[in-house]
């Protein structure tokens, strides 16, 4: 097989990987903020449940979580799902897992804010919502951006775990091509593509950090 054909196949896989990456970020970033609120909630029942959730998500392998989301409905509830559920399962698994990590990052950022910022906002008459979204969150973003960057870079590589439930993303493609041709080349090419993917991600995140460097 021509190497251009290999590249074509890998490109198809890359699109799927990109999809997982984008959907995961799109949903887990806001969800993580909600989870962080739950984690800091005054009600001990709410914060307790959220704490267990975060602990489970961080304490068990993402691959296992993907299996549970994908096979769980069938093994536990005997529901047979449409084959298209495979993709949905990947999204759910990744979003739930990453939201937990993001939640802890948000929490550390929010809790490191100076109490004086809240007090000044309160004295000036801002509502709690205005205070959070206008004053606290923009500053939290700047503080946590380096930690977020770490997670985003991990996510690029983690998308390959979708292989475990046979989603045709780039790693799955590379593995199949490699065994059908008894060649390392597809794996090496996939490696290069992952590297370029992350190079672009790191560049974008760096630009965002620079953009926020306008104040100290």
């Amino acid at each position: 097989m021509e190497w251009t054909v290999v590249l074509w196949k890998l490109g198809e896989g890359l699109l799927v990987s990109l999809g997982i990456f984008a959907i995961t970020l799109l949903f887990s970033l806001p969800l993580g903020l909600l989870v962080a609120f739950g984690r800091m909630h005054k009600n001990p029942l709410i914060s307790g449940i959220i704490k267990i959730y975060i602990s489970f998500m961080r304490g068990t392998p993402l691959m296992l979580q993907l299996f549970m989301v994908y096979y769980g409905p069938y093994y536990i509830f005997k529901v047979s799902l449409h084959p298209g559920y495979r993709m949905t399962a990947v999204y759910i698994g990744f979003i739930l897992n990453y939201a937990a990590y993001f939640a802890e990052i948000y929490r550390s950022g929010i809790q490191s804010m100076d109490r004086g910022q809240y007090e000044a906002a309160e004295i000036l008459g801002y509502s709690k919502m205005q205070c959070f979204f206008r004053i606290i969150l923009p500053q939290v973003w700047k503080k946590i951006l380096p930690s977020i960057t770490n997670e985003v870079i991990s996510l690029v590589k983690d998308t390959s775990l979708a292989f475990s439930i046979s989603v045709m993303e780039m790693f799955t493609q590379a593995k199949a091509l490699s065994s059908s041709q008894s060649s390392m080349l597809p794996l090496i090419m996939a490696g290069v593509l992952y590297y370029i993917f992350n190079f672009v991600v790191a560049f974008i995140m760096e630009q965002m950090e620079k953009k926020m460097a306008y104040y100290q």
Partner: protein
Amino acid sequence: MAILEMKNIRKAFSGEEILKGISLSCKEGEVLSIIGPSGSGKSTLLRIATLLEKAEGGELFYDGKAIFSLTEGQKKQATKEEKEEAKKLFGLVFQNFNLFPHWTVVKNVMDPLIHVQRKTKEEAEEKAKAVLSQMGLLEKAEQYPYSLSGGQKQRVAIARALALEPKILFFDEPTSALDPELTGEVLSVIRSLKGQKMAMVIVTHEMTFAKDISDRILFMADGEVICEGSPEEVFSSEQERMKSFLGNYQNLLS
């Protein structure tokens, strides 16, 4: 009528009494300074007056309306709406400024006018520029707080508070985070605010300043008001605690 009235305010932190029944009142346009040794509860009193801290006992009134009334017979709190109304009457200048670092100087002053007072952007900008120029900071309008000196930051914080046109402005040790050189510029802008309709309640360690600017001085120690009166009365008081506190200051001057 007094704009602010506090009666018999009590507060304890983990069992230790910080305020043992403090009363004070402040009329329209009046300048009241609160002096006293560190740890005497001055800042806590200010935080209770500005509703940042809850009192355990006593009463607080703004414009004659009760915000809370915690006496032996009754425990009454004003509604949330009533508290919001009262909050519009006062402003607070913090010891460490608490400017919003992600906004320019002018945005710091304008934003509450737009998002709290619901003024238009044009009105807000005009007002913001007016108070900034009053504070001598118009040329800093587009800069971010980190690039300003401590004195300039505090003047921005004062401008931010003034823009909302409070009837009473509280200062919580406004110069304690500043070196002596910068202290002067902040004190002189506070001086320039006197004689307008706005009342000021100033917690300070600057004795000369307090003596010059105040209509009335309240001396606090160990959670109690030790003496209260005109600057002349307080500074010539024969009260022992007052004399020992001022002793050092008088020695410095002579």
